[in-house]
């Protein structure tokens, strides 16, 4: 038993599940990516493709960098819409999930509607939203939220229901109130699945903001891409550049949510890759 006391101190508590070296994780996808970009460059050089149809990656990087003064504010606008939309989605989804978990009536009356709301083609709503609310950023935020709240609600509802029965019973024997049960057991149990839902939503957030901007906006990546593709001559290189920037921004947001997840649940063993 004395020997066991040293267990807590180090990270060696569970042998074999320490962090994998970073290079092992990053290297394979990085190599594949580099190979793909190399192949792309090769194709454009060998076949001499027109830059308005298929610009090479080197050209894309150079022109995008040259155009950064225009791209940066567009990216910033879309980022604000994406992040604010996600925040709004969380702010709506979590109370909704809790009320669905809380009351049979809400479960019967609201949950089917939440599911049904996903059958509405949100892209088709975009013009309507522009007609009603105009060209500003607010309507885009609303559309992003509409796109992304569903996975969060589903994750949270399932997470809340997944709470350990023994733990719930245990707290009942301590005369815990419903709120205490929610706060001390159900909500922490739901966090992992909430974050899974949020991560799925993150992958939609930029795309839905851009789609909303296509329909009608004065700023943002959607406007930027539209302008680039309709310029004479076409700035296909800038369309590629903006697409790449969107992908990078999405990855960054995804990693940020992963970081938030780790900070929100410090109790989890560092075992996942």
């Amino acid at each position, binding site marked *: *038993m004395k020997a*066991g*006391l040293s*267990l*807590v101190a180090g990270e060696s*508590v569970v042998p074999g599940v320490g962090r994998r070296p970073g290079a092992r994780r990053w290297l394979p996808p990085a190599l594949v990516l580099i190979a793909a970009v190399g192949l792309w460059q090769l194709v454009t050089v060998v076949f001499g493709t027109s830059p308005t149809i298929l610009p090479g990656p080197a050209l894309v990087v150079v022109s995008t960098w040259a155009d950064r003064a225009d791209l940066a504010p567009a990216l910033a606008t879309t980022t604000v819409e994406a992040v604010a939309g996600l925040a709004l989605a969380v702010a709506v989804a979590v109370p909704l999930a809790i009320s669905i978990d809380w009351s049979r009536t809400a479960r019967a009356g609201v949950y089917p509607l939440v599911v049904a709301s996903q059958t509405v083609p949100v892209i088709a709503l975009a013009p309507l939203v522009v007609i009603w609310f105009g060209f500003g950023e607010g309507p885009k935020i609303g559309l992003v939220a509409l796109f992304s709240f569903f996975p969060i609600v589903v994750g949270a509802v399932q997470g809340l229901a997944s709470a*350990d029965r*023994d*733990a719930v*019973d*245990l*707290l*009942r*024997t*301590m*005369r*815990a109130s419903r709120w*205490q049960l929610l706060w*001390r*057991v159900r909500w*922490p149990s739901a966090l992992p699945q909430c974050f899974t839902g949020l991560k799925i939503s993150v992958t939609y957030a930029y795309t839905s903001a851009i789609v909303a901007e296509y329909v009608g906006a004065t700023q943002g990546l959607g406007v930027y891409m539209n302008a680039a593709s309709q310029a004479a001559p076409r700035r296909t290189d800038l369309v590629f550049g903006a697409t790449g920037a969107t992908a990078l921004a999405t990855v960054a947001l995804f990693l940020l949510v992963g970081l938030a997840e780790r900070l929100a*649940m410090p*109790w*989890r*063993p560092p075992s996942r890759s």
Partner: protein
Amino acid sequence: MSTGTGTALEVVGLAKSFTSDQGTVQAVRRVDMSARPGELVTLIGPSGCGKSTVFNVVAGLEQPSAGEVRIGGSVVADRLGASAYMPQRDALLPWRRVIDNVTLPLVLAGSSPAAARRQVEPLLRRFGLGDFARAWPWQLSGGMRHRAAFLRTVAAEPGLALLDEPFGALDGITRADLQQWLSAVRAELGTTVGLVTHDVAEAVFLSDVVVVLTARPAEVAAVLEVDLPRPREAEDRERASFGDLERRLRHLLREASWASVGPGAAERPPD
């Protein structure tokens, strides 16, 4: 702590059936048991016979179909909170550090987290968890988790602690170690304990009284007084009187499972 006189727990004619779409299952037919303050009373019986159900009723998680439960001498309709319950699995909350799992009953009863920690720190130190106070539950071995779960159960100094197969999931060595530990803790705290087990040696080593239940639906088949001196040490297991009691209990248990089901269909009594 015990109050000295009367009974800490009295269960009279308890019956419990569950009704669902599949029909009615009678889990408990008739169970009587009692514990005087400071005693440890054990329910033993074949797996699935209704032991946990009895404790769930005593704890107030379920209402009895018939019969009465008195805790500290009085019948209360709402028994939640009248006893402390340790579920079959340890049910430590993964998101609370070990010390905060132990303070849980105090915090839920309205203590400030800081005051509750101050209150349980000596308990943790005294009973071998001092170095683990700030650890997360996943960092603990199975035995340590059970210690933490037990200290959580006694943290609010309940008049009665209900332990449902507290060591069931542990290996033999850890189990014997923890039985010894529990015996020592109880000698010091004097908590009245109801214990469920299907382990004969554990029942003899820990109990003052053993109530033997039949296969489902549970009925009391026999009551065995364990008159070994206290506190008991590991060596006591080697004594002839310990072996005699074990044999008698094993025999009673075998008879109990046969009596209700009949020899043909009898499950092998656990040993």
